[in-house]
């Protein structure tokens, strides 16, 4: 009964227990922010400890309440879930540290304590999904995180935040309920909810219709949750109108957690037990992914609002991740998982920079941001460097992602060549929308709102925000030059997932 044995559950329940405390604290200045940040940083420390434990000695199994596993709820932390735990808790910490001033500017102080309480509940839910090994438990955690997320989005400064949150609520609930239907069918066929146990028992009923239907419902539900094209409409809306720190947090991790569940169900349950499923999966998902990254990047080129632009860019980036999943090869999953990690770094950096612009200029609309390159050179340079990583220029983390993805895609023959061309096309569009920002920031004169020129005063983003931004930018380059950490986690996880199929 040492503390290290209890880490898998501690990472989930720590934010859960602190959340109600925050709600009680009500508005005591910056105290709620401080408590939330410390809690989130602690979960990150635990996640890092778990990751090193997993890398040293393989998957950790934890029986909740000491009930033996198929009867009680089990937590399983493998390389993939360890990576997700790190991404989620890291993103939350980064967003909290960088987001204090921006939260003060956008959210009424009397609502902040409750908002931070919701934040920790969302964190609990997302971490819980990554840690649990139980299909129904995934649903419960999914709803905990979603309900808290709706509340956070609704607290955005504009009134459109309310309708964005309502749309998110409707889509999210439909998604979770479809997922629940699928789990119901699987339970009917196997009589168990533990994913590992289910995978064994599905062997006896493989290739039956209910299992196939279950797969369909689960995929539909998760696609809604993960904002997979063409079910992405809620996401750019939610990102645009949510308070900016919340957008940083979500952009870096929340839809990825749904993709993680998709990956687990596909590779641990459905692919090993449904004969023709690999062909179905590829022929359904690949067109959706191509549509996702082409449409996402194309729309991003024309958006004038930076938060919305980055939301559409996320639609495209998530499509790359799903493309890796849909190839059904170990190289494909490795590519997906590397992009899980790198996209979190890239999008967090971009959104942190945007948060800085909003704090100083009160807007994320490009029409009002002329000449910001001269007013906040460090913030804008950080944005541009993170953008370079998004495009996938060598020496950045984004390049590693693209490199692995294109290698995995090229293994598919003629189809692979077509896909590679399309991926490059989408990357070119990314060049266009990042350039659009560069153009406005450096080559346009700042307007004073009356048609004249404003005096150029240096107004850099707040210091904590700037520090976080540059740490993230440095990480983008660090993991572009030495990507051994994400690659070793990804290859380990890919080996264990693909091992189940053959």
């Amino acid at each position, binding site marked *: 009964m040492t503390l290290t044995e209890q880490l898998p559950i501690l990472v989930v329940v720590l934010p859960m227990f602190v959340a109600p405390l925050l709600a009680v604290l009500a508005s005591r200045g910056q105290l709620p922010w401080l408590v939330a940040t410390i809690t989130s940083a602690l979960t990150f420390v635990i996640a890092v400890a778990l990751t090193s434990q997993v890398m040293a000695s393989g998957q950790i199994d934890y029986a909740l309440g000491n009930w033996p596993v198929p009867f009680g709820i089990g937590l399983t932390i493998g390389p993939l879930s360890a990576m997700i735990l790190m991404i989620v808790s890291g993103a939350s910490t980064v967003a909290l540290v960088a987001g204090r001033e921006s939260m003060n500017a956008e959210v009424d102080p009397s609502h902040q304590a409750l908002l931070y309480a919701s934040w920790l509940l969302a964190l609990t839910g997302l971490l819980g999904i990554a840690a649990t090994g139980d299909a129904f438990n995934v*649903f419960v955690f999914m709803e905990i995180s979603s*309900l808290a997320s709706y509340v956070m989005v609704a607290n955005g400064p504009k009134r*459109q935040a309310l*309708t964005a949150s309502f749309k998110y*609520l*409707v889509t999210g*609930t*439909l998604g979770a309920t479809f997922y629940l239907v699928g789990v*119901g069918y699987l339970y009917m066929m196997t009589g168990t909810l533990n994913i590992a146990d289910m995978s064994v028992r599905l062997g006896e009923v493989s290739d039956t219709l209910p299992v196939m239907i279950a797969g369909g419902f689960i995929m539909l539900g998760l696609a809604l949750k993960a904002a997979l094209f063409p079910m992405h409409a809620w996401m750019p809306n939610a990102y645009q109108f949510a308070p900016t720190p919340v957008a940083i947090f979500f952009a870096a991790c929340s839809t990825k957690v749904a993709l993680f569940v998709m990956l687990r169900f596909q590779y641990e349950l459905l692919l090993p037990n449904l004969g023709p499923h690999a062909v179905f999966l590829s022929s359904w998902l690949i067109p959706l992914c191509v549509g996702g990254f082409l449409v996402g990047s194309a729309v991003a080129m024309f958006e004038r609002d930076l938060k919305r632009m980055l939301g559409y860019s996320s639609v495209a980036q998530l499509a790359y991740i799903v493309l890796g999943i849909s190839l059904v090869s170990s190289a494909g999953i490795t590519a997906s998982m590397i992009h899980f990690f790198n996209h979190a770094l890239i999008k967090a950096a971009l959104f942190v920079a945007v948060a800085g612009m909003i704090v100083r200029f009160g807007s994320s609309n490009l029409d009002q941001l002329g000449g910001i390159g001269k007013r906040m050179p460090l913030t804008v340079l950080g944005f541009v460097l993170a953008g370079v990583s998004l495009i996938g220029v060598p020496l950045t983390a984004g390049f590693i992602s693209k490199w692995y993805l294109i290698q995995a895609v090229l293994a598919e023959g003629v189809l692979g060549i077509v896909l590679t061309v399309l991926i490059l096309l989408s990357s070119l569009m990314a060049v266009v929308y990042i350039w659009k920002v560069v153009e406005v920031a450096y080559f346009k004169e700042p307007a004073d709102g009356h048609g004249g020129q404003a005096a150029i005063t240096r107004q850099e983003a707040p210091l904590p925000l700037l520090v976080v931004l540059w740490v993230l930018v440095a990480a983008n380059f660090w993991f572009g030059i030495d990507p051994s950490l994400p690659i070793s986690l990804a290859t380990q996880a890919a080996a264990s997932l693909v091992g189940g199929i053959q």
Partner: protein
Amino acid sequence: MTLLGLYNYWIYILLLVVGLYAVLVKSNYVKRMIGLGIFQAAVFLLFISMDKVEGGTGPIIRGIPDPDQLFSNPLPQVLILTAIVVGIAVTALGLALAIRIREEYGTIEENEIRRQDHEA
């Protein structure tokens, strides 16, 4: 026999589709919440139907259990209890949002809200 024997499942499918229709087609936010409620209720029915074991009684053990006694499966009921709680939370939050939207826009019709946002 099979057609009627699957009565619960027919109703489940009907409710699922009716709920989904309301959610996707209706423009009034309260009606959409009602649709969402119907949609979720359909899934509750699915789980409750699958737990019934023919000839089984309620899964409560009194005294020494008879080894031949059949019991219904209690697990789906427990799951649905949790799902109902989740459903209530979603409904409450959705309706709260509808109230806030009404305060801000003066309406809960999506077309009208879209028009107001477009003008602004």
